[in-house]
């Protein structure tokens, strides 16, 4: 499966996701340069974590205007798979491909730690490797991971089952914004969402950092594995 990992100035998880796709999942992977619209026929586009353009204006804001994003938008509109991780999630929101905004974390600090996620959807190309209700342990590493939206849009996201991952604790119980396990302070403990069609996923935690047993945790591997396994299958009709 041909996968493309976009490189913006300041991307710094590009090598990490490339490594997992190439060496753990044995896929064909190429880097895509931010200045070029052409996606070189890639079927999966990954917007990796990092600090595109230093996050100097607002996380993801400048990257959203790069030429490559025009290509990514067309790819998404055509039903192609797009995965945005951390800064990539921020870029997807700034591009309008996903709803919401990411504010500073509750403690106003960078948070690098393992969190627990509950899987809310197991029917997306990204999540078929999980069962709904599974509790994953997965690292976050961000300063701006606090997902917020208007109550009406949050209600709509819930109604359309577009919340894919939620922060939880080791027991998997439902937690609110104030709960200590919700380290970012995200509304309704949202950690990752999809678009209406289910072919674009954005999430703050880093599945590529927990995809190998040697690193002590492989809970993120099913996400990437099912994503590349599903590349090429028709998505969209069921979820739209």
């Amino acid at each position: 499966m041909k996968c493309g990992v976009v490189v913006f100035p300041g991307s710094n998880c590009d090598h990490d996701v490339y490594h997992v796709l190439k060496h753990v999942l044995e896929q064909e992977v190429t880097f895509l340069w931010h200045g070029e619209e052409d996606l070189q026929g890639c079927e999966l586009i990954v917007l990796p974590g990092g600090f595109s353009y230093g996050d100097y204006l607002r996380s993801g804001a400048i990257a959203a205007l790069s030429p490559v994003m025009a290509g990514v938008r067309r790819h998404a509109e055509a039903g192609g798979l797009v995965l945005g991780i951390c800064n990539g999630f921020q870029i997807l929101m700034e591009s309008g491909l996903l709803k919401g905004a990411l504010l500073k974390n509750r403690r106003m600090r960078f948070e690098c730690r393992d969190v627990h996620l509950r899987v809310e959807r197991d029917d997306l190309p990204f999540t078929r490797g999980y069962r709904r209700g599974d509790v994953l342990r997965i690292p976050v590493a961000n300063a701006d991971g606090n997902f917020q939206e208007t109550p009406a849009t949050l209600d709509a996201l819930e109604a359309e089952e577009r919340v894919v991952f939620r922060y939880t604790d080791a027991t998997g119980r439902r937690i609110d914004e104030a709960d200590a396990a919700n380290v970012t302070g995200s509304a309704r403990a949202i950690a990752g969402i999809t678009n209406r069609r289910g072919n674009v996923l954005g999430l703050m935690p880093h599945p590529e950092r927990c995809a190998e047993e040697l690193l002590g945790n492989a809970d993120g591997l099913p996400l990437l594995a099912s994503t590349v396994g599903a590349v090429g299958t028709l998505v969209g009709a069921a979820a739209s």
Partner: protein
Amino acid sequence: MSASSKAEPRVDRALALSHGLSDEEYENLLGILGRDPTFTELGITSSLWSEHCSYKSSKVYLREFPTTGERVIHGPGENAGVVDIGYGWVVAFKMESHNHPSYIEPYQGAATGVGGILRDVFTMGARPIACLDALRFGDLEAPRMKHLVDGVVRGIGDYGNCVGIPTVGGATSFHSSYNGNILVNAFALGLARHDHIFTNAATGTGNPILYFGSRTGRDGIHGATMASESFDSESEAKRPTVQVGDPLTEKVVLEACLEAMRTGAIVAIQDMGAAGLTSSAFEMASSGGTGFRIDVGQVPLREPGLSPYEIMLSESQERMLAIAEQGREGELVSIFQRWGLEYATIGTLTESGRGVVLLHGETVADMAIQPLTDQAPLYTRPVAVPANLARLQEAPEVPVPENPGQALLDLLATPDLASKEWIWRQYDHTVRTNTVAGPGGDAAVLRVKGTPMGLALTTDVNPVYCALDPRRGGAQAVAEAVRNLACVGAEPVGLTDCLNFGNPEVPEISWQLREAIRGMAEACRVLDVPVVSGNVSLYNTTEDRSVHPTPTVAMVGVIPEVATFARSAFAAAGDRILLLGNDAADFGGAAYLRLLYGIEQGRPPAVDLAAEGRLATLLRYLSRGGLARTAHDLSEGGLGIALAEACFDHHLGARVQLPAGGARLFSETQGRALVAVAPDRVPEALEAAERSGVPATEIGEVGGDRLVVEAGDGGGFDLAVAAMHEIWSTALPRALE
């Protein structure tokens, strides 16, 4: 010289002295030039001959370090030390201080400290993969101290996180000697292929000199000389000399640099660090035995109107100087353009052996290079044993704790011994997906992708020991680092250091410096660890108060098979706990006395280097084979603290039997470690200990949710792991927020 810039002041002796040159140094300069220097030449010379750049007060002692070894490819003198780790890979690493700027402006000071050390590593052709930070703060109640802690931690985090280099470990401690002069020591390590190492030796007459990276501004002018002066109450006013960091540009420079290196068109390269363009141009030509002719009118500027003096001395960050192969500049330029970087060809290499600086064709400096770099001043400063040393070293009275359990809890609640997670959670420690064991253990462990190997990293020093006996303190820092690496099964391959001391013109300070280096050098020789890079930070003195002598050690080790090594926490109920090494009553400089009773006295514990070597060999054997599931070094706070720490990761308690409890639980006898092994493998572990000549005693068993110490003298305790953990994990955030 007739052509010096009209606007620049005339140089006389008084101006030279105000630039930090001594009378003798000024005479020396006049001798080298055979005439009065221009203003630009004075600036260049005062920077090159500053303590920070020339190591003039420490060089005579630094020669005592062993710097060679089978694996050593580049020792001290390069931008970073380079050591062969096998499978065609080398590691480049170095540690550097950014103390003075961080005290003046903590956020930018610490951030640019990280930036500078990263450039030192990638300028060698190595991709940085890990950082460590050793931080020494004053009492948290001291003026500005919480602000300094917060600023330094944010500065390190924001810079390292943005560039995407994980900060995988470090050390933080607090002592009033740092109230007026904190220490920020940053370490970075990078990986390169064996046949792809770059140096700063500028060779090839006619080769063009390329500048790339950020534009040059007025920030940081005289940073190197500032780092070579003591502080006074006016230091706040020096804020303009602190540089401002731009981590995005650093990241882009890093990527562009590694890409440019792959073309093969780069002959030599160096970043512009302390003393900026001056030190990179002069050091590169000096290393290559060449000369240079540059026109600073070509340097990209942030604002118009900078004088040649300012351009030569600016310490603006994220700037590189490269020598390209003549005719191949275009290959490099297209890479710089693609990454959106500023660049300019600012001159060419010559065979003159002279550094010629022009401004739009007009000569502003013309100096012979070799005399300036090789004949930099060298001092053997007078030394004196501190008058109060004998009194300080008197054996302290050791109070018996009324309640040993409470004493342990009180120690766990001190910022020194409490969890540092509040700090390291603000650093990305998992990016690059190599972190097998992150912050919080004895040593950080990284895998090396594409090999079965692992790298282990640790940083150590006990400044209180060093204040009470710098020689022992220096040796102890090295020995503890070796022990920490051995716990994770790693064999040391090299060491870098940051030697932080006060004003070397004070004989007692020079004595501390000499003694600490001797102690370190002796330990390095016995334990077979070459010193491959490092830095010296002197004048850490504020209003006559000097910091504790702090020779920070950072050590790198190799684990042959990273899939198996012992962790620092208890892992399985039923495992038997063995204490390795001799137990004695050692309280000189002990945390127990200092933190609970305010006593900082006595000779620090003796360091038996041969015994440390035997212990390290045993620990590596136990850790690598999986025989020990847990291995944890005993250091500050002794056995009591080590046992408590081992309970935390998995909330797993232990029951331990000891002949003596009470204060003895907190003795800091060196050469000791805890290991935990499965019950059926105890005989095997004990046999291994006997073969290695290391005393080993079975002291208890892992299990339950309490730490219970049953002492023959009644000085034991029984504490819930959860209660200890609560105190230990919340102490630092409570103190800071």
